[in-house]
């Protein structure tokens, strides 16, 4: 523990060089800028900004990344409060109450409680991350390949079935992601899969291309396919983005409760930011003395879910850094960012690249602080961004997404892939299939195959190893409880109604 603290201080030392601070500042600015734009969530924002970091040295780039990460989250909450649409699932709740507050002329208070709440939650969650991730990583060193495989399968099951409204549709998305992950040469034997003789496909499909295309191009195609394109109306904001003593009094407990709900649900693969934000909202509504205000613009309904959203995002970084397992689209992009510098997150990361990982954690603190200082005073500038006409906005998003897809390898093949994935993204939106399981499948699919093969190599081909040992048994036990449990419960409920 004490050692980790010293490492963290070293991390701060890495961050506090003029160059790295510059990149941190640039990251917060760009992250917020792109995050504020309607239709761009944190995952897409990071994906779009990835090419910018490609030519910078790894440490500075990752520091910039941490800043972009929190910046995009902040930007997103501004949009959901001032526009009458959430834009992404984690902000649905913020939009619900925050927009009502804005309508009642309390936009400033809503923005302030969101920003300060995000700061408080982000800071607490980053502290927990700094001390939790190394412990988890140390434990993870003892996990055997079969254990890893069980963890991945658990992540597949929870991300596939907990997101969205329909279980089967989540699994459809997962299967599509697994198929995308298959494309290319098999790592061990070199056997080619689904390449159709295309030389470019041998290296597989770039994950960043998939992420950028499925969010940006899929969304643009989907909105274009709807008859009318509605320009979302921007709320008026009078006065400063600040809150009164009364607002503060009503906000601080929801911030802490939101953090307590959001962080653990990010660490375990519970499937994105929907669940924690909805839970936090429910808790605040149940505990509030002003229940009648909920649905009409209650500040607790912004403070809690916003804190939960941010703490959740930091929580997701714990398994991402310590196990190398991303369980949200945002974490998936951060993982890809690491990989683009040939750094593999996972239990070894804290030993092989301590300066990078601690620099990253320190810059999460710094980025979070910079945002609080920058964001509220600059609010009027961000509001201007919301007024960009939607036809230029989507034209820009499309063009920029294609740039990102191309710049990675300077290859037109990636652009062709982007077009196809964009069409898939359109179909998914049209038919109510969630996007995240596809991304998780595409990233974790190849990894699951790797652990599967390793496990069977250890056992000389005996499949029994997959469930041997305590750890896999515990994980599969949890899996059965999480997946089968609700099914039985639902069945009982329908049965009871019929009776």
């Amino acid at each position: 523990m004490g050692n980790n603290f010293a490492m963290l201080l070293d991390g701060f030392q890495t961050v506090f060089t003029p160059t790295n601070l510059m990149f941190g500042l640039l990251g917060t600015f760009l992250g917020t800028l792109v995050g504020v734009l309607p239709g761009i969530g944190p995952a897409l924002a990071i994906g779009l900004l990835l090419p910018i970091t490609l030519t910078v040295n790894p440490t500075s780039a990752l520091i910039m990344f941490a800043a972009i990460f929190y910046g995009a989250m902040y930007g997103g909450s501004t949009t959901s409060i001032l526009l009458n649409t959430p834009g992404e699932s984690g902000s649905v709740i913020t939009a619900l109450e925050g927009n009502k507050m804005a309508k009642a002329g309390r936009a400033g208070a809503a923005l302030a409680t969101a920003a300060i709440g995000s700061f408080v939650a982000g800071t607490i969650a980053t502290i927990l991350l700094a001390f939790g991730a190394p412990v988890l990583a140390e434990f993870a060193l003892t996990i055997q390949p079969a254990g890893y495989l069980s963890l991945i399968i658990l992540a597949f099951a929870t991300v596939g079935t907990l997101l969205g409204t329909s279980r089967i549709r989540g699994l459809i998305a997962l299967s599509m992601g697994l198929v995308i992950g298959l494309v290319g040469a098999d790592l061990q034997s070199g056997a080619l899969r689904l390449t159709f003789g295309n030389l470019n496909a041998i290296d597989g499909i770039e994950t960043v291309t998939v992420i950028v295309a499925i969010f940006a191009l899929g969304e643009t195609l989907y909105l274009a396919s709807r008859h009318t394109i509605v320009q979302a109306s921007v709320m008026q904001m009078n006065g400063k983005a600040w809150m009164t003593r009364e607002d503060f009094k009503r906000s601080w407990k929801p911030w802490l409760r939101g953090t307590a709900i959001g962080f653990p649900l990010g660490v375990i693969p519970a499937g994105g930011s929907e669940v924690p934000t909805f839970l936090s909202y429910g808790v605040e509504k149940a505990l509030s003395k002003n229940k009648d205000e909920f649905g009409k613009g209650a500040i607790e309904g912004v403070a809690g879910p916003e804190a939960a959203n941010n703490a959740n995002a930091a929580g997701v970084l714990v398994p991402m850094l310590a196990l190398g397992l991303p369980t949200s689209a945002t974490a998936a992009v951060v993982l890809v960012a690491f990989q683009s510098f040939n750094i593999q997150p996972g239990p070894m990361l804290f030993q092989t690249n301590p300066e990078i990982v601690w620099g990253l954690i320190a810059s999460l603190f710094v980025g979070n602080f910079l945002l609080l200082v920058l964001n509220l005073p600059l609010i009027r500038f961000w509001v201007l961004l919301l007024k960009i006409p939607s036809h230029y906005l989507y034209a820009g998003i499309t063009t920029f997404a294609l740039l990102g897809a191309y710049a990675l390898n300077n290859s037109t093949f990636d652009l062709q892939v982007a077009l196809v994935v964009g069409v898939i993204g359109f179909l998914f939106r049209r038919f109510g299939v969630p996007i995240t399981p596809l991304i998780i499948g595409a990233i974790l699919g190849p990894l699951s195959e790797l652990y599967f093969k390793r496990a069977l190599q250890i056992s000389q081909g005996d499949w029994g190893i997959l469930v041997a040992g305590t750890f896999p048994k515990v994980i599969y036990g949890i899996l059965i409880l999480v997946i089968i449990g609700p099914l039985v419960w639902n069945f009982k409920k329908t049965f009871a109604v019929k009776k």
Partner: protein
Amino acid sequence: MILNKLSKQGKGELAFASSFFLLGIFVAWDTSKMDIPQDNSIVSPQTFPYMVAAFATLVGFGLMLDVLRGNHGTPDGDEPGDPYTPLNFKTMGIVAVAIGMHVILLEIAGYVIAATVCFWGVAYAFGSRRILKDLLISLVFAFVVYFSFSKGLNINLPSGFFEGILK
């Protein structure tokens, strides 16, 4: 006769669902045709793809059943507008063509032209009709991106027609 009961959207969704069923079968077929270079590993490179194929086929079938039983997906409604409006293939087609043009033009005509065409096309599809003004904005956007990336960040973008001027 079951098909008659389905609405137009339902039929589209059924086709969507069956495509996953077919995708699974296709992956299995591709796997069976796989060239295995001197295999002496314990796990064949075919094992995992077969599992994925089986999974895709299974969930594809599951979704087909779900649609046939009348459970339809809820279109994504996080953005403004009514998600249940009928599809407008014209506007969507324009966006797809704009993206396609970018892909084709990039290495033939260079980044600036490809990006201008794409930006302008998407803006047009989204209802903007100020053709000249849009063209100007598209050009400026393409130039700014080209310069900041190729000069500022040393990311190599094809210069195309402007090779002499921009270098």
